[in-house]
């Protein structure tokens, strides 16, 4: 295979049919570029989603109250389910829950509040939380700390603010120890979070202030309400099982029909995660099928062209045989031409694909909020593609090569 002399011979033949060689090569080139672009796109979406979910536990479950749809225990349907502090005790008794974080948003879900510091103000999300939230969403801290048990116990008026909140209200001033006003009540800033999540989720984190759950309840007279629960499952408990137990306990407490699935809303990260994984698997599969089919079309093109070439070169092959070429040397000549053509075209395609992905990466990295992450086709995939190409080139060469080997020199020389 490393016989330079033979490759010179092959190169001479391919060069003598430039246009045809080019057109054939383009099919393979395009196939491999397609394959790489699709795999790159898939990995980009995957990287993007991973970025969004970074810092979130994967065995996460959120539950919130909705409206009942069935009458139960003498109660009519259409009743609003409101969680309360009693539910905290009920859920804490469930053995499958590792960390429980009751949460409440000031003003209700998706409502924002005006927060001010001295003359500056902005509109942000205010969340009442327990220290356990750390286990649900992992934060890093620019400064200070998160809510702790003493804040909860003493109902301290403290706040942990997001990065965007700090930027808007404080600019370059150090916010730690300063007092901000939330809806007329002063809170002392004790920490600034730095989110690990990307995209929309990261944005939301940056625009959020966290205050102790108990403080918010009394400061804003929210009674015993709990907005929703976030929790993680103990290791060994799967997401669907945890959700079943939580729903059962809450349904009993709030007198909800056991089969009324719509009364309690939920978001199960575990289920979401496995859905994601299935999605990415399918995406990769589709990429390989579509890219592979394009590549296959290219390879069939090579086979076809090689066959035509062999027919056109009947006389040449006849002459070669008369001069002492063995059938094996003819087979090897045609196969090597086929492999060389496929490999050169394919490797050019790989290079173009790598260039394309690098370009996409450069563009995407200039858009930090993009839901797409950096496209990344691993070296292993590239090498696999190259191996596939060389094999494909060989397969493409089989038929033309065996045809070439069967050419009888007398028939070839008669064709005058």
């Amino acid at each position, binding site marked *: 295979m490393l016989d330079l*002399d033979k490759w*010179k*011979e092959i190169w*001479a*033949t391919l*060069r*003598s049919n430039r246009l045809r060689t080019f057109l054939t090569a383009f099919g393979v080139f395009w196939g491999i570029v397609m394959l790489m672009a699709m795999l790159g796109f898939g990995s980009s979406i995957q990287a993007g989603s991973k970025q969004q979910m970074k810092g979130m536990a994967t065995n996460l479950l959120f539950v919130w109250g909705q409206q009942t749809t069935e009458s139960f225990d003498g109660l009519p349907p259409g009743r609003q389910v409101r969680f309360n502090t009693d539910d905290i005790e009920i859920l804490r008794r469930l053995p499958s829950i590792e960390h429980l974080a009751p949460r409440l948003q000031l003003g209700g879900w998706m409502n924002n509040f005006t927060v001010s510091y001295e003359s500056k103000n902005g509109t942000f999300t205010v969340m009442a939380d327990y220290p356990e939230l750390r286990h649900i969403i992992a934060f890093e801290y620019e400064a200070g700390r998160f809510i702790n048990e003493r804040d909860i116990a003493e109902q301290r008026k403290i706040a942990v603010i997001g990065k965007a909140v700090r930027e808007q209200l404080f600019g370059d001033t150090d916010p730690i120890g300063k007092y901000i006003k939330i809806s007329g009540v002063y809170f002392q800033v004790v920490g600034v979070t730095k989110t690990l999540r990307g995209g929309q989720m990261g944005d939301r984190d940056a625009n959020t202030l966290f205050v102790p759950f108990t403080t918010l309840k009394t400061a804003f007279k929210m009674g015993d309400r709990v907005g929703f629960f976030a929790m993680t499952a103990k290791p060994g408990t799967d997401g669907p099982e945890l959700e079943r137990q939580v729903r059962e306990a809450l349904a009993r407490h709030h007198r909800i029909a056991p089969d009324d699935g719509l009364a309690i809303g939920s978001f199960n990260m575990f289920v979401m995660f496995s859905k994601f994984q299935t999605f990415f698997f399918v995406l990769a599969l589709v990429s390989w099928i579509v890219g592979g089919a394009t590549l296959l079309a290219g390879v069939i093109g090579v086979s076809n062209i090689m066959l035509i070439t062999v027919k056109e070169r009947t*006389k*040449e092959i*006849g*002459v*070669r*045989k*008369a*001069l*002492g*070429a*063995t*059938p*094996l*040397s003819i087979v090897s000549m045609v196969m090597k031409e086929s492999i060389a053509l496929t490999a050169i075209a394919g490797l050019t395609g790989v290079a173009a694909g790598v260039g394309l992905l690098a370009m996409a990466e450069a563009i995407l990295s200039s858009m930090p909020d993009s839901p797409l992450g950096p496209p990344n086709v691993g070296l292993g995939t590239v090498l696999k593609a190259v191996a596939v190409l060389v094999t494909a080139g060989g397969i493409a060469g089989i038929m033309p090569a065996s045809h070439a080997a069967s050419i*009888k*020199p*007398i028939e070839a*020389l008669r064709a*005058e």
Partner: protein
Amino acid sequence: MLRLDKVNKYYRVGTHSLHVLRDVELEVADGEFVAIMGASGSGKSTLLNILGILDDYDSGEYWLGDTLIRSLSEAKAANYRNRFIGFVFQSFNLLPFKTALENVALPLYYQGVTRRKRNQIATQYLERVGLRDWAEHLPSEMSGGQKQRVAIARSLIGKPRLILADEPTGALDSETSKQIMDLLSEIHRTGITVLVVTHDPEVAIRTQRTIRLRDGKVVGAHEASLSNPGMPVAVP
């Protein structure tokens, strides 16, 4: 050099069988210069193909030197062609995308000779046919006579014991034909057996002996031919 003993060849055309060579008896001594003549359809091309191990025969024996040539594998046939026989064709059969030098060197490629070595040898052979300055030219840039000289150089490079020339002057004008026959005579004088298939008496007259074929049979093979009665049956 070579001997054919009751060689028969049939071509199957549908259900019919065409008897192309009938009990051909033929002997050519080492170093002979022989012409094979015959009208078209007389079987002379078939005979040449069998002699050149390009085609097999149905019965009889063909001895090339001490070797019985019969039902050889393609690889073996290729090897014998490469080592023992040099071909010269009417239409030259040079590879159009290769230079004169590369064309001449081609048989050595199939002997596994390195590029440098075979180009060196090919240059010598091109010089021998007077085309050293044309080494880097493509066949399309050469005249018919020059192309045939290149082809002859190619037929010689493998140091064959037998040159088979199929109508070597068929595509050339009479002046060029004469030069090519001069070249073949010169090759013959170096001790190589030369067999020329032709229907041109002008060509046949330049050889030592003419074998005539008619309807697949050899006629007057062992007599001095009519066209060159004075020439002896060669014993160099």
